[in-house]
């Protein structure tokens, strides 16, 4: 779990806090990523894409809810649950694929998300 949590923290820090080398935006494993303004509706699909690619899991639309994804601790629990479920369902040899990119990669445009645009003109 610690490995997974560390990797997730690194992904979140690099991708949403752009490294945060100053440490001004440090967050704990239990902090709400939404309430801290770290991940919003724009970022959540980036996180989902990352999880699918990195951990070879498929995340259904109805699973993209704060209960599963709104803190590092929740994401860790969710990913571990998904991996266990996948391992149960798959042929034993498939367990070896539990880590690493696979053919489950979603199309790139899945990550093309946007919140309402502020640009306005006639």
């Amino acid at each position: 779990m610690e490995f997974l949590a560390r990797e997730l923290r690194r992904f979140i820090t690099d991708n949403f806090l752009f490294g945060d080398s100053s440490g001004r935006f440090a967050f704990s494993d239990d902090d709400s990523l939404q309430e801290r303004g770290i991940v919003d509706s724009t970022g959540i699909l980036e996180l989902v894409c990352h999880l699918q690619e990195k951990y070879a899991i498929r995340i259904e639309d109805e699973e993209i809810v704060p209960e599963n994804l709104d803190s590092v601790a929740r994401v860790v629990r969710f990913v571990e649950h998904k991996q266990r479920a996948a391992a149960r369902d798959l042929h034993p040899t498939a367990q070896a694929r539990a880590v690493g990119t696979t053919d489950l990669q979603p199309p790139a445009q899945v990550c093309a998300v946007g919140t309402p645009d502020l640009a306005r003109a006639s």
Partner: protein
Amino acid sequence: MVGRGNVIPHCGAIARDVERGSPLRRGKSFAPFSSAVCGIAGIVAADRAEIDPLWPAAMIATLDHRGPDDRGFHLEPGVALAHARLSIIDVAGGRQPMSTVDRAFWITFNGEIFNYVELREALARKGHRFRTQSDTEVLLHLYRERGADAVAALNGQWAAGIWDARARVLFLSRDRLGVRPLYYAVVGSRLLFASEMKALFAVPTVSRDLDPKGLDNVFTFWTTLPPRTIFKNIRELPPGHSLTWRDGEISVWPHWTPRFPDASHAARTHRETAALEEELLQRLEQATRLRLRADVPVGAYVSGGLDSAVVAALASHVNGVPPRTFSIAFDAADFDESAHQRQVARTLGTEHHELRCSNEDIARAFPDVVWHAETPVLRTAPAPLYLLARMVRDQGFKVVLTGEGADETLGGYDIFREAKIRRFWSRFPSSSRRASLIRRLYPWLRDLHRQPAAYLQAFFHVGPGDLVHPAFSHLPRWNLTSRLKLFFSDQVAASLTGYDGVQELVDSLPRSYGGWDPLCQAQYLEMAHLLPGYILSSQGDRMAMAHGVESRYPFLDPDVVAFGSTLDPTLKVKGLAEKYLLKRAARRLVPESIVKRAKQPYRAPGAHAFLTGRTAEYAADLLSAAQVRRDGVFEPAAVEHLVRKVRSGRALGVKDDMAFVGVLSTQIVIDRFVNHFITDTHGILSSGTSSLHHR
């Protein structure tokens, strides 16, 4: 040497020749009109101290793009006024700086007074005698007649400096909604003013240090809160404000602010919708008619949306011939509206010119765009407008009508409807329709439709206290943009400790604001901030005037604005239908498909435009860790991460895209204004000051 007390009308004069007729006069008679596409500058000194003549010359030389043909100066002890003019036709009226016959009052003026014909007649009846046909002279006489109150009578877009030589008072004024820019700086006992900040920087003693609070404002509101600018020592004269300077004492006050009726006021406009439609059309027609007063052809921008189509249709109706129309097309389908633009042009029968804009075009133009905008921008949207103005100018047009202002005055913006939905959510938090309502609001934003409902709702979440917040409508946008401040360096972040830009804005709201309808409150926030600070400047005056093109805005006519302000909110946004009354009225003017078309804001390709191909070089240099570290505004490691993310080629979210454009444009501001600001004083002395002779 520069003559003291002399006007040096190096500039040519302004167009005016009714009898010979311009292309637009076919079938119609037009009043003579002086089109004052100009830049202004000046210096006053409390102690009547000598003013180095190089200073006004250097200042006005930086504004050549606003008036490339001629420069004029007025110098007397302790006073220098300067003017850059675009000669349209060389007629002997309208030279600037201009004085009254007795030389008691002097003016340097940028803009248009559209109702100058009527004002002139009224002044003439009172005994005023005019030497020219220009609107500039009318304003000068009006000021002599009424003093600072003169501006209340103006229907126009102006930035003006008037020197009362007897009282030794300088009067500065800016139009109601901030179409024309005006900045000032105080250096010792001197006040300097100019159309653009770069003119102030031409005086070496004016500091070019950035103001962290100005940056904080831009990375929250997309614009600074006036009078603050992004430069510590430069002040903007806010829209609808006037200023007087007397012996070093400065007084600034609003001559106009957006006002709305109290929500409980029984006298709100509730007349028959049909009658209101008629009145709106009449007011718009008159506003357009006034803005067609020109001695040069007037073109029209067509965006593919309703507002610009209405303006072009009214121009066609008033003139009896369709205006030439201009539009921007993009290769990227997400941004392109050319099919709708062509439909408008076909329907109106205009000769239409289309600028096709590529990513590379945007990236190549962007440094010049920022130079003219004089502020960081979070969108590339100004760049295509910069290129469009160049095309307009190349086609021989110097004046265009545009549709800006309709969304603010008549209730067109998505943010108005979004606020309605969020209020609905707060009352019915368990409604299952919440996400679908938001998706209905933004049919053009395809990416949004893929977002998970739970997170979409979270973005538009109404938190405790939000409902009673005076800026309820705008908080989600400001909060989103504020997240870009994570790129600020520790030093900048530390200097902002304790500063709250949103609170500063709230503290500046009019006393009556709390009694207005929520829609009117949101309209006010748009009209007082984003409209002047971004739409009319970074996307408006600055891009058009970079090529000596003047934009005119019928929807911002004071009579139209007043009509929109008092209109019942349900006739602006009815249910979730935006610009309800305008759409009803527009059916008589433009195709039904344009009226019914879902609103799509004007946008342009963003971050990915910069990091591909040859144009990437300057962006890579300015965003390098070494340069970012030297400049000190942003955290180098954070910018490196961002650049890497953009370079990866993956689709970017709105926030990342804004971050990239915002960081890059800030780095360009630093590069062009702070690190390498160049004034060609030798060139000025050898060319521009050829006019600085005794006459």
